[in-house]
């Protein structure tokens, strides 16, 4: 135990003197600045709008407006077809027009992930389409995926889960692999191996160090954007487990590679794959199954739920299960590759 403490202490000294703390805090602050000042509070998520209407609608609309609607490239015959189309394209909403009390009645069908701005924008554009004539009562909103709607979050703050996801999954991966391959390049690892210290103690110390940095960076980003909104405990649990598996993965790669240069390529490829779910965040619900299988995808949804949706925890638990599984898998991989790799040459 005291050896592990010494090892962690040494990691902190060395990483601090290599300006890790400075780099990590700078990145966190830059991300905070981007979220607060660069990302527009209202973002236009170029969404497809599928339309359908009953034939009665013709009687309550201007004929040119009615024609415009039925000739729209996204016009479909029935409400069922609209829903089917929406299920195929997560980045879409649906509009079904009927007549109620001699006035057009609008039913807006949404995926459930859209935020207030996007919905208001869609309604406004439909009203414009209909020639701004008065609608029957109110419109009616139907949600395809219940329980996932995001509370009223400005668009810029709604991206907060992204930097958290990227930092916890990738910063650890890279920095820890650099820490270990540098030890190999400088052969300090040999000086360690000829002490009673165990290889796993050295690896654990590095994982613990990265865990601290991951918590620090996530706390800075969330604290300076959302403040104490959301479920911090859940957020930190996800950040922690993610940081652990990504550190283990980084160490595994470093164990299997002879030097920093040879480790670079696999690291970059793995990071690109892990970062891919970002696409589905920006093109809302562009989520082909290969993206949904990635741990960072479930992490992203889990973080979003932890930070923005108080009422449910399904996605949090899904993300937690996934990252817990990866902690076991990559943890074992790290131990095995460590035993094998740190002995040779």
């Amino acid at each position: 135990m005291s050896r592990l403490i010494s090892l962690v202490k040494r990691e902190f000294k060395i990483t601090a003197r290599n300006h890790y703390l400075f780099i990590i805090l700078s990145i966190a602050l830059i991300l905070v600045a981007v979220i607060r000042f660069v990302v527009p509070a209202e973002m236009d998520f170029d969404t497809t709008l599928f339309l359908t209407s009953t034939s009665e609608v013709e009687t309550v609309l201007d004929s040119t407006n009615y024609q415009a609607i039925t000739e729209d490239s996204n016009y479909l015959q029935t409400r069922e077809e609209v829903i089917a189309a929406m299920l195929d394209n997560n980045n879409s909403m649906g509009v079904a027009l009927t007549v109620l009390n001699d006035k057009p009645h609008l039913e807006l069908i949404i995926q459930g992930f859209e935020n207030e701005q996007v919905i208001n924008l869609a309604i406004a554009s439909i009203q414009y389409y209909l020639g701004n004539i008065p609608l029957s009562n109110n419109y009616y909103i139907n949600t395809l995926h219940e329980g996932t709607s995001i509370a009223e979050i400005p668009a810029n703050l709604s991206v907060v889960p992204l930097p958290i996801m990227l930092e916890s999954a990738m910063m650890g991966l890279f920095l820890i692999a650099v820490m270990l391959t540098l030890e190999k390049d400088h052969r300090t690892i040999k000086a360690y191996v000829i002490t009673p210290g165990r290889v796993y103690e050295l690896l654990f110390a590095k994982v613990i160090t990265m865990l601290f940095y991951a918590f620090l960076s996530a706390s800075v980003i969330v604290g300076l954007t959302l403040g104490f909104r959301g479920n911090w405990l859940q957020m930190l649990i996800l950040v922690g487990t993610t940081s652990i598996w990504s550190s283990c993965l980084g160490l595994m790669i470093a164990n299997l590679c002879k030097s920093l240069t040879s480790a670079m390529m696999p690291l970059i490829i793995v990071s690109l794959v892990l970062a891919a779910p970002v696409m589905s965040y920006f093109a809302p619900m562009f989520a082909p199954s290969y993206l949904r299988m990635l741990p960072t995808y479930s992490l992203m949804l889990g973080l979003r739920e932890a930070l923005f949706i108080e009422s449910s925890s399904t996605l949090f638990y899904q993300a937690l299960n996934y990252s817990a599984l990866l902690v076991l898998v990559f943890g074992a991989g790290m131990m095995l590759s460590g035993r094998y790799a740190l002995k040779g040459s």
Partner: protein
Amino acid sequence: MIKVKNLSHSYTKDDNFAVKNISFEVPKGEIFGFLGPSGAGKSTTQNILIKLLPLQKGKVFIDNENIAKTSKELFNRVGVSFEHPNIYKKLTGVENLEFHASMYNVPTEDPLALLEMVGLGQAANQRAEGYSKGMLQRLVFARSMINKPRIWFLDEPTSGLDPGTAAIIKEIIQEKKRNGTTIFLTTHNMQIADELCDRVAFINEGEINLIDSPRNLKLQYGEKFVKITQRDDASVIERRFSLLDKADKAQLKEIIERNEFETMHSQEATLEEIFIKVTGRRLT
């Protein structure tokens, strides 16, 4: 003590042996020199003994423990000084030693006292990235003593040091020996080996050709050289002839008969020359 029996090692796991069936024993308190040219298999042997390389074939006992079976606790009794200065450059000299000391489960030396001993007292609190090559080497040397090892592996401990510092290092090594430390010293430097070692092994192409004390070797091979100086116009040339070598002897005879020399001395063979005689190879 160190005991090695029929040790072989092949990096390629075939018949291409870097170390071939070597055996030797180093009793407690002895300084054992492991001498050989580059590529002879010195580092390979040492790395197997300190478990940096897997034991493929043969038996190795360190401090009475079979290294194939022992745990990492054995390293509490072992010290290793590397030729390559593998130091945490971002830590100071003292921090490097303190960290290393904290890895052991046995009483350790005071880091500052060790640094003073090797002449790094002044630089103790300076980060190692600012150290010169010789300073780094002394730091590695000091680090290898931190756990008061009973078995001490030294790889080229004095190479690249100025004579004054080298003398201090040699004095420390001799002091440790007097305290009963068993020392395995790897070197190219025959003079160091001659001064320090109780016995030396000549290793060449993975095989040990001979093991004996420098004194015995010199008794056996020494007093058999003749050094003459010749004047060639303005310059003086020094030549040495072995009295064991037929061609040398014939040549020497001719020179004497023709009186083509200025001075003539019989000379003790150096370990280097003995090495060349035994292995047919130069050391460097």
